[in-house]
């Protein structure tokens, strides 16, 4: 990994060590996690390792948004509809109680069997799904509810009606909405973080990835089809653009990695949910003291600074 990224992580470790005693167990867990992450990053992720994560991220038994919702939240109430044209089932939105605090949860939802896959459109949302997300965020903002988003989509649905109803604009406005919120927001990529359809709900104060999640500008297959005119070269594409969590952390696109049980989240969904819960609560606690303006300002500044530049 780059020296900068390592230095950055070391910085954060040092900071966390310094305040550990003030915050108790949660921060020490966070500390251990970052140490583990640093450990992993030191062994540069191999091509095989990256592809294994792509496969795990798409594993058909991987827990989906509602699998976490039922394990994490009390008093879940699902909100439906964009108040305009439909209820897009590829995105789930609702309110629930996490560790005693009301949060809004918004997440892509894939289907487990054929029928549900059709209903959920494979987790590929239409503009109406993003509009449901937007209205849920505005509701949460008005009431001071923190927002948790769970990202798991191959991408926004490429359909005729989707374009006619403004897919691009809906994705843009969902990001604009997130960048205007005055409540704490945490986004977690729990599976596939596919392109615009993913980032639409991932513009958060803290962006995390589960250990075996991927976050991509284009699917490996799509990339391979364009660059090598051969979708079968997806593995090669994946190693070229490095969609795994470690590399996303190195590029400072994400703020942390949520560990999974051995073998991946699907091997033990309860354990995966417990690890996710711990991480969410730590980050929400961390953000709880910040004023709305400060949240907004620093969230914008974070995304404003993304990218790597050279000069002539």
């Amino acid at each position, binding site marked *: 990994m780059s020296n900068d990224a390592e230095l950055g992580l070391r910085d954060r470790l040092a900071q966390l060590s310094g305040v550990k005693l003030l915050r108790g167990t949660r921060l020490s867990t966070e500390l251990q996690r970052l140490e583990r992450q640093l450990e992993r990053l030191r062994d540069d992720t191999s091509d095989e390792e990256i592809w294994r994560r792509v496969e795990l991220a798409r594993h058909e038994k991987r827990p989906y948004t509602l699998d976490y919702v039922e394990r994490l939240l009390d008093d879940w109430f699902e909100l439906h509809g964009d108040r305009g044209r439909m209820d897009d089932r590829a995105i789930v939105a609702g309110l629930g109680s996490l560790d005693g605090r009301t949060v809004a949860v918004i997440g892509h939802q894939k289907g487990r069997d054929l029928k549900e896959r059709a209903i959920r459109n*494979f987790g*590929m949302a239409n503009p109406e799904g993003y509009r449901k997300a937007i209205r849920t965020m505005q509701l949460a903002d008005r009431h001071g509810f923190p927002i948790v988003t769970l990202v798991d989509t*191959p*991408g*926004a*649905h*490429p*359909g*005729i009606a*989707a*374009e*006619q*109803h*403004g*897919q*691009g*604009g809906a*994705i*843009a*406005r969902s*990001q*604009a909405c997130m*960048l*205007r919120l005055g409540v704490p927001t945490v986004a977690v990529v729990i599976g596939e973080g*596919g*392109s*615009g*359809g993913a*980032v639409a709900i991932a*513009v958060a104060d803290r962006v995390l990835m589960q250990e075996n999640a991927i*976050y*991509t*500008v*284009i*699917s490996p*297959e*799509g*990339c391979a*089809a*364009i*660059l*090598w*005119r051969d979708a079968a070269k997806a593995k090669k594409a994946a190693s*070229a*653009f490095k*969609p795994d969590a470690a590399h*996303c952390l190195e*590029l400072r*696109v994400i703020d942390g990695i949520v560990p999974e049980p051995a073998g991946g989240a699907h091997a033990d969904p309860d354990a995966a949910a417990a690890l996710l819960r711990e991480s969410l609560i730590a980050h929400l606690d961390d953000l709880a003291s910040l004023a709305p303006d400060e949240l907004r300002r620093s969230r*914008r500044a974070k*995304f*404003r*600074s*993304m*990218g*790597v*530049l*050279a*000069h*002539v």
Partner: protein
Amino acid sequence: MLWMSTPPGHIDVSIEHKRADPARSDGRGDHPNTCPTCGSHYRDEELADTLRVCPQCGHHFPVRAPERIAQLADPGTFDEEDAELRSADPLEFFDLKPYVERLAEAELRTDLGDAILTGRAAIDGHACRIAAMDFSFMGGSMGSVVGERFARACERSADEGGVVVSVAASGGARMQEGILALMQLPKTVAAVGDLQDAGGTLLSVLAHPTTGGVTASFASLGDVILAEPGALTSFAGPRVVAQTTREKLPDDFGLAESNYRFGHVDAVVVRSELRSTLARLLRLFGGAR
């Protein structure tokens, strides 16, 4: 057709034009100065004189960023900013050739540092900033430099409560910068947010083609959105949609005229009226009391 195939169910943020060869950069005809609609052929000066609109049939040819600025800005007023920025290669990306090599080639071929040109200008006497994209630089794809130049243009204008005129022409996010290219979406959206919250204005012009990540970020957030006739302005490209849905697409799928009908574009403006339309909007957005 403009779009590469991808397997159904997978999304292509439409990185690069199939025919990115600059000699065919309109992607429609055999020769860049042959009209793909009516077949008329022109000398380059002839087209330059008609703002690159076919005098026979009205087809709008692509316009390179420097020429676009010359068409819009008052003579001598354009003052480029952030010219020194260049893309880095954080992923050490390599497909058929290294990304750094592609960048160098594109710069040599286009004489541009990246796919967008930004700076101060005046339009009909009204000070503003122009951010014009250039499709001939790697398909107008958006990487860190496009995002950064655009964001800086917004920031500088926000300080003055001013207007940014953006002219988009892009295949989407630049694959070779991986996830950092995707992050240019929220980055430019944040910049537009800062501009608009400060009372500033984004006038967004969509030229052919404006697709993928640019459609899903700043280009769709204009206070006013104009599009050129016949411009493809969609998120997903027609071929991806056709392959995924296995349906026949409407003839005008994703075109400016269709997006106007569906409520996403305020006006489809012929190129000969683009400057005067922008001037009118600059007067209006300067006229709050």
